[in-house]
């Protein structure tokens, strides 16, 4: 890392200017996909399967076709003719675009109706007649592996079971040896349940085919417009130069808008065939029931330790429920994502994990919900195990962590499952958190409360994340290297435009990326317009998810700005008639060393680049582009401490205090970083306390709307106490690591650990999320703590 120079320019890194994108959002002038209204636009609605598993005998659309305004009904058979009935998933599987042979989950797409108005399209769904033969349903992934289980993916040739993959990492033998020598083995059998990112804007598309030019423009709720363009080109056989994806303002993504969904494909095909724009926007119910869910990891973890609390080894066995199609979104070579970050912040001797993916009759996925590829599940497992070890050994949970942390001098640290951590100072973050929460006092209070029979708990999470994919030698999606890009063009008057391969769903890139330029070039951030999301006007990139924008796109921005700074230096040297090396650069001005009166501003240099008086060997103009391939991943970390009081009568868990100390390296805009942490913590709170998608034995989905799938409102959301720690990444151009996901990765286990800490005097060692009052009350009742 070249340390970010302390710039005094308006908006430089470390300052917190207000967001420029807000000017349109607070006026209601954002432009989301559903806001796109085009002349002659048709509307699409999707008829979905009521069954979780059933053979389709016949589909009759004649009644629907006769209904007012209906233009077309598209079935799977219609798509067969165009080779589009099935599509590849990001995970190398196939997924039915519209079901032809059978349906495999409740809510699966069967028929698309295209009509003149959205009401007419919805009406016509009543006119679709499908004859089904229900089949036995599998909702339990363990049952899916039974020898006599019905085969869900009968479409896959030679498939005789419901197993998708086995993925292993680490050294099984070395781990066995460590376990054999251990005094203590803590075991935890836990489900990280199925949840949903549920961004406030659902998924949708407006496909607009222009017959005259052959150009297909798709307005898409997309976190990765460039990758989606390439995939559309490959799947639909459309020439890539005639495909334009515009991901306009996106109302939250959180991973939900990474995959390609059947609705996108059919709307595009329909526009192509009918020659008119076609809009499809899913309802909330469709969003929750059919698009990318997250987690659903059945985890068995074991932690080996000595009796005085030295942690030795970790073993994990995971059954991963991927639903009816393996539509998870992970880098291609990583079927269980980066789950092997599971040794977390601790220096273990050996570790091994094994993950088996299986098919069930549930919606396909799973996506990385505000998570860098299964890191959330991994962090949960190790942090739950560590707290249970603390209870088992009687060593204080904070002390135990400190004893086992990887030490600052051990970085770069090679983990037993193969990652090389770039930097960290875990104890520092922990100490800041302990101080902020008033730890000693709290433990005293807890002891007093316990003596009185009151139930109070303190839970920890000292997580380490791996983000910023990154590293094309190990990370690609569908063969596309996970690079990202930035193109910077400064106009003669010294104001310019930055075009990004990454895209924003609320992260504030139009502000923060301009700040990076401000920092590097000394041009005020308000003079840089940031463009993103339109594939015709931005350079290629893999998109925004997995906290990768700052580590990759941010790095590209800094580097392209530095290239131009060097050009400006040459121009300044020419104008000042000195050698480039004689110039110092600070906050947008080149000054001749030792002659402060001789200087040129960056704006003067830029203007010079467009004038006739340039050295012959220098190209005119002031623009450049950088494609950045990260040399390493980044490893944000932090310590979170949660304090809860539990009502013995009702089981209600009240979060009294939550301290979050994050280390995400250099912070571009501290206000935005804090905002990201608030949001992520609240999502983690939802995960821990209330969010759940479950199924009955017939595969009926519970949690398919906002009455059943509860996300936090302002009433129950806790207040957050934030602390800060900064350990810059040594390999990122300005030391940033990425922050979007740390709070969702780091927080759920802090809530659960707090509740288990409160209840462990009653012999409780685990409660699976979500920790609803009812569930906690039942645990209390069974433990004889509460009255009936």
């Amino acid at each position: 890392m070249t340390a970010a120079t302390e710039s005094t320019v308006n908006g430089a890194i470390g300052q917190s200017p207000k967001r420029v994108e807000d000017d349109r959002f607070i006026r209601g002038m954002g432009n989301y996909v559903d806001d796109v209204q085009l002349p002659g636009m048709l509307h699409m609605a999707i008829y979905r399967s009521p069954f979780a598993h059933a053979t389709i005998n016949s589909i009759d659309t004649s009644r629907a076709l006769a209904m007012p305004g209906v233009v077309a009904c598209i079935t799977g058979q219609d798509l067969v003719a165009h080779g589009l009935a099935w599509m590849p998933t990001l995970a190398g599987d196939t997924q039915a675009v519209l079901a032809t042979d059978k349906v495999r989950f409740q809510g699966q797409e069967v028929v698309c109706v295209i009509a003149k108005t959205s009401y007419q399209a919805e009406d016509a769904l009543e006119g679709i007649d499908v004859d089904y033969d229900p089949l036995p349903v599998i909702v339990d992934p363990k049952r899916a592996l039974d020898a006599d289980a019905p085969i869900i993916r009968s479409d896959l040739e030679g498939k005789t079971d419901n197993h998708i993959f086995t993925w292993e990492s680490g050294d099984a033998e070395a781990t066995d040896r460590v376990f054999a020598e251990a005094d203590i083995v803590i075991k935890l059998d836990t489900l990280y349940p199925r949840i949903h990112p549920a961004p406030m804007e659902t998924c949708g598309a407006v496909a607009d085919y222009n017959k005259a030019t052959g150009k297909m423009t798709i307005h898409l709720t997309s976190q990765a417009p460039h990758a989606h363009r390439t995939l559309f080109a490959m799947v639909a056989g459309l020439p890539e130069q005639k495909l334009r994806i515009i991901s306009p303002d996106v109302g939250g993504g959180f991973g939900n808008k990474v995959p390609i969904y059947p609705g996108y494909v059919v709307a595009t095909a329909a526009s192509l065939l009918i020659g008119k724009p076609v809009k499809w926007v899913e309802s909330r119910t469709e969003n929750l029931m059919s698009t990318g869910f997250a987690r659903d990891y059945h985890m068995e973890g074991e932690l080996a330790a000595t009796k005085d609390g030295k942690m030795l080894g970790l073993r994990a066995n995971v059954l991963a429920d991927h639903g009816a199609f393996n539509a998870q979104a992970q880098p291609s070579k990583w079927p269980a994502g980066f789950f092997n970050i599971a040794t977390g912040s601790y220096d273990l001797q050996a570790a091994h994990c094994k993950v088996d993916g299986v098919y069930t009759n549930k919606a396909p996925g799973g996506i990385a919900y505000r998570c860098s590829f299964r890191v959330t599940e991994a962090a949960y497992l190790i942090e739950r195990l560590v707290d249970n070890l603390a209870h088992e050994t009687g060593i204080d949970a904070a002390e135990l962590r400190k004893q086992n942390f990887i030490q600052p001098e051990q970085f770069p640290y090679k983990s037993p499952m193969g990652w090389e951590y770039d930097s960290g100072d875990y104890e520092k973050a922990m100490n800041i958190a302990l101080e902020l929460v008033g730890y000693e006092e709290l433990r005293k209070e807890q002891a007093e409360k316990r003596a009185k029979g009151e139930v109070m708990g303190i839970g920890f999470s000292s997580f380490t994340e791996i983000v910023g994919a990154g590293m094309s030698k190990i990370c690609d999606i569908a063969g596309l290297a996970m690079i990202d890009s930035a193109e910077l063009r400064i106009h003669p008057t010294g104001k310019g435009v930055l075009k990004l391969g990454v895209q924003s769903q609320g992260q504030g890139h139009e502000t923060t990326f301009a700040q990076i330029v401000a920092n590097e070039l000394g041009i005020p951030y308000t003079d840089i317009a940031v463009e993103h999301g339109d594939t015709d006007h931005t350079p290629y990139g893999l998109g925004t998810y997995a906290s990768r924008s700052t580590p990759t796109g941010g790095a590209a921005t800094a580097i392209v700005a530095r290239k131009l700074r060097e050009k400006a230096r040459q121009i300044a040297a020419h104008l000042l008639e000195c050698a480039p090396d004689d110039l110092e650069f600070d906050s947008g001005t080149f000054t001749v060393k030792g002659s402060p009166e001789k200087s040129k501003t960056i704006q003067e240099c830029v203007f010079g680049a467009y004038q006739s008086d340039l050295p012959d060997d220098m190209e005119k103009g002031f623009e450049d582009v950088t494609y950045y391939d990260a040399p390493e991943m980044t490893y944000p970390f932090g310590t979170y401490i949660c304090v809860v009081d539990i009502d013995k009568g009702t089981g209600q868990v009240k979060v009294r205090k939550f301290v979050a100390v994050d280390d995400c390296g250099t912070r571009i805009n501290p206000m935005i970083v804090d905002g990201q942490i608030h949001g992520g913590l609240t999502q983690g709170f939802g995960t821990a306390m209330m969010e759940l998608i479950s199924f009955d034995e017939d595969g009926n989905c519970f949690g398919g709307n906002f009455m059943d799938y509860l996300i936090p409102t302002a009433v129950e959301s806790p207040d957050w106490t934030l602390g800060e720690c900064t350990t810059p990444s040594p390999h990122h151009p300005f030391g940033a690591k990425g922050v979007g996901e740390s709070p969702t990765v780091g927080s759920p286990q802090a809530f659960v650990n707090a509740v288990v800490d409160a209840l462990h005097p009653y012999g409780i060692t685990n409660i699976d999320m979500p920790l609803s009052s009812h569930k906690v009350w039942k645990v209390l009742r069974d433990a004889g703590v509460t009255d009936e």
Partner: protein
Amino acid sequence: MSDKMIVKATVNGEECEALVEPRTLLVHMIRESLHLTGTHIGCDTTSCGACTVLLDGKPVKSCTILAVQANGREIATVEGLETAAGLSVVQEGFKEEHGLHCGYCTPGMMMTVTALLEENPDPTEDEIRKAISGNLCRCTGYVNIIKAVQYAAGKKEGAAA
């Protein structure tokens, strides 16, 4: 479907007319007939409040009201918050306090808050949390939305004094 009806309403101070089916939801009339797309849709169970507008000054979820019910009444949407005098204090508060990320919930949230401050110019934190509990935000965790409301309340008071 049955014959269309004319709805006449005052929208952000201007007389407006729209020809709609009797079953048309108010939110669809606002977005599709009047092209005021600042009012959003986030659910199908009256849970999220992304569609909140003011009907005769009271916040309503426009996805749960028929357009025809608004006939002859006054509708205020996010597009009407800014006046010739500039941004409303609520809009200003959301920007100043970083009360939004993706902006999808923001228009509905700001309408609810606008109505709250009309009724209760100096709400406590608890009152604010209750007032906005019908407006879901998936991005912010509400902390800065509450600060935005407090900012707006403070500004309003300053202006009144």
